[in-house]
């Protein structure tokens, strides 16, 4: 599943990720454009037992969350 959460303010990126996790999606690819959103999604993923890979390209954070 792919989620473009760029420009979405807190807590939208977390809600979209959480919805995907509730549907047992894995892997989830999510793109965010603020450090804050990146940290929040990462914390949610860690709490829910997902492995997180983050790649920064320009001002965007490409995140891969997988169980």
């Amino acid at each position, binding site marked *: 599943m792919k989620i473009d959460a760029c420009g979405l303010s807190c*807590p*939208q990126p977390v809600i979209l990720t959480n919805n995907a996790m509730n549907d047992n999606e894995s892997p989830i690819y999510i793109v965010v454009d603020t450090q804050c959103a990146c940290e929040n999604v990462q914390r949610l993923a860690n*709490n829910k037992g997902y492995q997180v890979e983050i790649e920064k390209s320009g001002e965007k954070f490409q995140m891969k969350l997988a169980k």
Partner: protein
Amino acid sequence: MLRPISRFLTSRWGMIVTGATIGILASLLQKLGNPPNMGVCVACFERDIAGALGLHRASVVQYIRPEILGFVLGSMVAAFVFRDFNARNGSAPIVRFLLGAFAMVGALAFLGCPWRALLRLAGGDLNAVVGLAGLTIGIAIGDQFLKYGYNLGRSHKTYYSAGLIMPAIMAGLLALLVFAPKFSADGAIFLSEKGPGSLHAPIIISLAAGLLIGFIAQRTRFCTMGSIRDVLLVGDFHLMRGVIALVVSAFAVNLVTGQVNFGIIGQPIAHSNHLGNLAGMVLAGLAFVLAGGCPGRQLILSGEGDTDAGIFVLGMITGAAFAHNFGLAAKPDKILNDVVQVGGISSAGMTAVLIGIVFCLIVGLTMREKIQGVVR
């Protein structure tokens, strides 16, 4: 050097340190002159700034609070140092402005923002429990809107200089405070000679405390509204640890400095009209969720380039002016000759709170842009 600091501040302990720092500094600021149980209150202090500028003429609550200026400027410095300054603007500015204004109407019905609710609790004012209950109800309602797709749309990168407007305004206010010019014989700048507005710690200490809090809160994303929202929405206690640390540390320092006085009636700059306290904070909590942050967090965001948060702050300052010009703000309990006069909000104040709640419900129900970009 920067990376370990940043990593620490975004950790669990970083959040606890942030909450504790705010609690300790707030309690000390009270000891050094700030009003009781009001070491730092974003709503009250923005209201004082509105008064100093003459946007309202309640002569007891007029002062340019350096703490507020410090939050924004400290946040800007942190954002520069950690390369996190991101000039951006989004959508629905008039909605954000009114959410700010109504959030202030709600906060002034209770007489405090969530930070002050926590500080009042730490000082033994049990009316804060009613206020925090109202805040939680408002946030729980807002969470439902979030779950069903409420959002005000995406923000976009904007001109770098646009992101500097709010810090520049705060720097300008600092100049007005330091030089305190008189623009006409009976005109602004107004500075209270009695009442809460006249109670303040030395400027340099208030400013330093504000800068420090702004700096670390920018890194840790401390937010009282977010703490309750995250627990209710996704069971995440990260921000809540900071909130608990704030209350515990402020209570501890209050105990040591003799600032704890348990009770309900006659608490400093507070009223014991429970319906007013509850309804005001329901409105405030709801408006904070719809706008994406508590008043403190909005100030911090406005310092790191978020112009949407800047609009919310300007809305709050305007709302404070309306609240006092129209007699919507609550009156504190008074004790005259051992007789308690219970304060609270006027019928106009309650009407304004109800109009605010209706406004927020309409915003929550009708502004549900479908988020493009989710692909299965």
